[in-house]
């Protein structure tokens, strides 16, 4: 088994599997859960407690750790060209460099903005009602920002390889 097989073959496989889980759960939160929780809160009596207690913590667990695996596998694939991509030193690495930066900003949002605020919202750490309301807004906007950035991120990830890159960027 060569290092190429592990770095590019296994690395790409892991990157795509973890990426599907990360972005899939991001889309679940944004396309399904946000509106479902609003509808559940409007029920009489409110019916969202089960989602908050049983679904959201599990979804967030796989969401944030899938983000870690996705980023690590992506870095492993770029290997010693990681700096060329992130610093845009090689023209051929510009598309994947932009995709990687978008992914890294999204990763920052997950671990620095979404997860710490979700811990307050879900009652995993103590917070006043005012802190919870602020945490809701910050986590919501960070999650929506990631959904917005996922569109160009996936575009650059999927158009950065060989003939896909030639077709898109000449």
């Amino acid at each position: 088994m060569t290092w190429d097989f592990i770095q590019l073959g296994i690395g790409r496989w892991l990157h795509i599997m973890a990426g599907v889980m990360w972005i899939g759960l991001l889309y679940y939160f944004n396309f399904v859960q946000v509106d479902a929780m609003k509808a559940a809160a409007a029920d009489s009596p409110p019916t969202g407690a089960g989602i908050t207690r049983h679904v959201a913590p599990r979804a967030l667990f796989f969401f944030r750790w899938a983000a870690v695996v996705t980023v690590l596998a992506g870095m492993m694939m770029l290997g010693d060209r990681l700096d060329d991509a992130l610093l845009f030193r090689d023209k051929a690495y510009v598309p994947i460099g932009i995709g990687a930066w978008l992914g890294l900003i999204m990763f920052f949002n997950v671990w620095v903005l979404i997860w710490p605020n979700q811990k307050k919202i879900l009652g995993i750490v103590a917070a006043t009602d005012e802190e919870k309301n602020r945490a809701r807004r910050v986590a919501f906007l960070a999650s929506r920002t990631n959904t917005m950035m996922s569109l160009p991120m996936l575009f650059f990830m999927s158009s950065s390889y060989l003939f896909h890159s030639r077709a898109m960027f000449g």
Partner: protein
Amino acid sequence: MKNPLDTLWGTVISGLVLTVVLYYLARAMMGA
């Protein structure tokens, strides 16, 4: 002005606009 990220469609449209902007930026950086 309302934040476009407050609605799902605003978020998706913002993502599409950002994709187009970054696409032309990438082409310019590559000298294409």
